């Protein structure tokens, strides 16, 4: 079987692999790149445990071929935390008890991160709509919504502070 070279950037790092056309993106990420934070839950495009950011868009990586990701910029849960510690969303899930078994959490985090990128101040309805393709069998979603709200508040406050600092700088 013919294989194809695939070049992807994952969490800012360039990777290359030779793949069979039938290899799914989630297997490239988990088995070839050994980034096992991205989970496989249902394998039938229902649960969202496999959600990654594909060129910024939350996508079920069990339903994309690895060859189709050639040249793409991919974000996985391993790339969320920065040099200065956890992402505000990760902190939110911690603080608000947004997980129990944690199996759905990487997918929830990636969908949540994309939501906050597009809409920094989402309503509860908007959060629920955004995560409607991510199933959680433990929490009942209430605390997941709270966790996203926590992150929105924290990121909003941080952004306001940066803006203030910038204006202060201009004044002096």
């Amino acid at each position, binding site marked *: 079987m013919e294989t194809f070279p695939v070049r992807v950037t994952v969490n800012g790092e360039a990777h290359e692999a030779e793949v069979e056309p039938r290899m799914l993106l989630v297997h490239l990420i988990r088995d070839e790149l050994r980034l096992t934070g991205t989970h496989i839950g249902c394998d039938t495009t229902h649960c969202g445990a496999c959600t990654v950011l594909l060129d910024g868009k939350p996508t079920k990586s069990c339903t994309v071929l690895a060859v189709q990701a050639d040249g793409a910029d991919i974000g996985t849960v391993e790339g969320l935390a920065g040099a200065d510690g956890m992402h505000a969303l990760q902190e939110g899930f911690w603080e608000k008890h947004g997980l129990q078994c944690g199996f759905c959490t990487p997918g929830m985090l990636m*969908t949540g991160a994309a939501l906050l990128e597009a809409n920094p101040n989402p309503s509860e309805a908007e959060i629920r709509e955004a995560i409607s393709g991510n199933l959680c069998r433990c929490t009942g979603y209430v605390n997941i919504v709270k966790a996203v709200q926590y992150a929105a508040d924290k990121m909003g406050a941080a952004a306001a502070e940066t803006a203030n600092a910038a204006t202060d700088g201009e004044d002096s």
Partner: protein
Amino acid sequence: MIPAQFEYHAPAEVEDAVDLLVELDDAKVMSGGQSLLPMMKLRLASPAHIIDLRHIPGLDAIEERDGFLRIGALVTETQLEESAAVAERYPILLDTARVIADPLVRNRATVCGNIAHGDPANDHPATMLALRARVVATGPDGERTIDIDDFFHGLFMTALGEDEILTEIQVPVPPAGSGGAYVKLERKVGDYAVAGVAVQLTLDGEGKVTQAGVGLTNLGFAPIRATAAEETLLGADFVPAGGLRGAIERVRDAITKAPGADEVIAAAAQAAADMTEPVEDRRGSVEYKRNMARVLTARAIRQALARAGAGG
């Protein structure tokens, strides 16, 4: 679950894709892959060749031109949801996109794939029937236009030839005084419809229905155009005095007060239900589905009327 082996082709032009379809045995086109890949993983489909359209430039445009809203083969449901033209003049398309699958699937699933798949459970076929859309198919002899009424032949069967690609859907720009709605009953987010109803209406200045389109989802072996319901609606008078050009509230008020309006809506809803051929499954019995078709048709008509009035 991993699909069976296949060869992968990523043509850069529509012509090349058509050539591959002509040349290769057992080849399938892939656009969003959100129906095809799940089927391949379950081995319900095991094509020998996949022809991926995603590298063909120019297929991802959605624009109004020459009297049609043109939806290219790679336009995703998310793009439809984000389009200003759709929000303004085609609320029925927005209704439809929003109840398809879930936001993650919609980031890849295409509108044209939803039609090409030929699944009566898909939501866009009913909407396109109500909107009187046309489908552009590109094959070895070039392009041809297929009326949506001639497109759906049955379960997973369409008018597309084996060597044709659906390259565009064309939706006529609705005249002034138009409004439409898609109403779907689903058990949960991401589920296919128990029943779904699309209604698109155009009213003249006096509130008389001059165009009516009614499409039904998952109520038979193919998407159904409820012509009997359309005939009941055509010519009906929904706003007796004062015309249409008012706030939504006033129009709603007028609709409910127009003599005979409730009876017309009820008759159209019943006519739609009578045209359904649902099968009993996990989503309900035949009687239940037929009754839901009636209830949802009435709701969709009222919503379409309210929107038709709000336009002016």
